[in-house]
């Protein structure tokens, strides 16, 4: 019974704890700080952009400008130094910051093109806008802070999973396991309208055995989980916060 590994069996399957971007963003080391802020911006710019579109009814162009200006100010004025994870989640903190920022900003204010030398994250606003338009018809957001929190939460998860899927594609590609990713994409991501294919159908489609489908999918799902949780860990400050966020992300909160 080789699966009944001894208690305390193989260790080190999980990667060592990645640095917390939220903590590192307050570092005195400019390089570390810049890298950390880059990670935070990557995780949050798209949810913020969509939030501005839906909560503040900003046009596409205005939402782009405000997103950029807000992120620039977040970095320049070091908003994150006021963040206390014991009091609120990072998403809620950022939403409140965005609300204050928009409320305090006159539309005619300087549309600064700041931060270019500080931040090196390409913001694909066209892609974000396409996603927003795609999803808007299905959105029924009530005008309350709670529902906007939920919206931001949903978009944060969507963005995090999107980034994790992209990472998984690169990970599989680099290891010559693109087939694994394609199976995962076909089985878990495909929304082409037809019903979800069976493992047997996938085996036929990819010209492999059903057991290979099972194994390849298990591999891809395992790596996806690992990558998504690694990215999530960057956005948390402590092990307890990470566990709480991870359980919410995976939908396994206590019943």
């Amino acid at each position, binding site marked *: 019974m080789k699966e009944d590994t001894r208690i305390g069996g193989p260790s080190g399957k999980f990667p060592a704890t990645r640095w917390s971007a939220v903590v590192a963003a307050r570092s005195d080391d400019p390089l570390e700080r810049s890298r950390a802020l880059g990670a935070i911006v990557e995780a949050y710019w798209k949810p913020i952009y969509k939030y501005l579109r839906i909560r503040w009814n900003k046009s596409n162009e205005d939402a782009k400008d405000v997103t950029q200006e807000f992120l620039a100010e977040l970095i320049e004025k070091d908003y994150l130094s006021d963040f206390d994870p014991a009091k609120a989640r990072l998403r809620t903190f950022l939403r409140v910051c965005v609300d204050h920022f928009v409320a305090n900003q006159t539309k005619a204010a300087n549309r600064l093109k700041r931060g270019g030398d500080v931040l090196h994250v390409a913001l694909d606003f066209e892609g974000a806008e396409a*996603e927003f338009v795609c999803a808007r018809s299905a959105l029924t957001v009530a005008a309350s802070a709670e529902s906007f929190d939920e919206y931001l939460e949903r978009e944060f998860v969507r963005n995090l999973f*999107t980034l994790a899927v992209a990472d998984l594609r690169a990970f599989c590609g680099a290891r010559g396991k693109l087939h694994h990713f394609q199976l995962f994409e076909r089985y878990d991501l495909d929304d082409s309208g037809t019903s979800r294919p069976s493992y047997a159908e996938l085996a036929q489609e990819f010209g492999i055995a059903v057991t290979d489908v099972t194994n390849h999918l298990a591999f891809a799902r395992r790596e996806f989980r690992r990558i998504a949780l690694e990215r999530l860990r960057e956005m948390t400050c402590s092990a307890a916060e990470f566990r709480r966020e*991870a359980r919410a992300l*995976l939908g396994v909160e206590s019943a």
Partner: protein
Amino acid sequence: MNWLSDEAIARLRTAGAEPALAGTRYRLIERIASGGMGSVYLAEDATLGRRVAIKILDVPDSSGELAARLQREAHILASLEHPGIVPVHGAGTLADGRVFYAMKFVEGERLDRFSERASTLPGRLRIFQRICDTVAFAHTRGVLHRDLKPENIMTGPFGEVLVMDWGVAKILPAKQISTPAGMPHDQVRNHPGTLAMDSSRTAPKTAHGAVLGTPGYMAPEQARGDVEHLDERADIYSLGAILQFLVVPSARGTQTTPRALIAIARKAMDANPAARYASASELGQDIARYLDGLPVLAYPENVFQRIARWAARYRMAIVLVLTYLVVRALLIFWFRR
């Protein structure tokens, strides 16, 4: 793949949460419960063709604390072979790094839900006796449960009563282990099931000041975080709270609770540990005395109460004697007329 629909996200959540059982002999069926530490899944043991429950940590645990706690729980369960404790079938680490253990799948109901339905007072008391027996057994093996409550008791369809969730159990130092009646103390210390002899399994220790347990069922000394001085009497307090849950009308919606039972629950839940029952067996024996119509340790009766209890216990005999006397008196009266 730039756009992930809500449906795709839901599938990814499921894919990310499901344990990677590929490569094991278990086949996932469904998640049946989630707790503070992890989730319990129903699975099929493909080798033996039976259903099992698998408890798994939900998320990576960088500190290793939760993994150690789950492993320790598996060790404790494996060491406590008793009809009131769920048997462990296997344990290990999955391919995705999550620690797990597989145990018997108990088809039944939690005590809090079970007791909402029917069940007579004597029936509930007999279940309580079984819980006391199980806890007393664990105490003789040097294990405190520390989170006894109705939600952690399972009742099966064939009368099984199982004490579950030993995740925050404490292993007592050998000198603190209670001795079952008739067994010398050194014999208990050397019993193969006595966990306190193996110091490697006591880790991770709960830090002094840490509060583990459930408010309402937790002894005052446990709520204070006085971890080092906790002993069996903390569990006896929790048993008293469970008894109260089972018999007190406000909680149960039953008829008036007999004073003797209230006294038993109060004695078990005394704020002073020294004033509680000395052992879970003693508490269970007091319940047995109540069920047999005998005086209980916790409730000194006055003469009227003693007569009332005596009358209740021998009700049938008293009715027969009285009937005989009445009939005889009538016959005497009839023949003398």
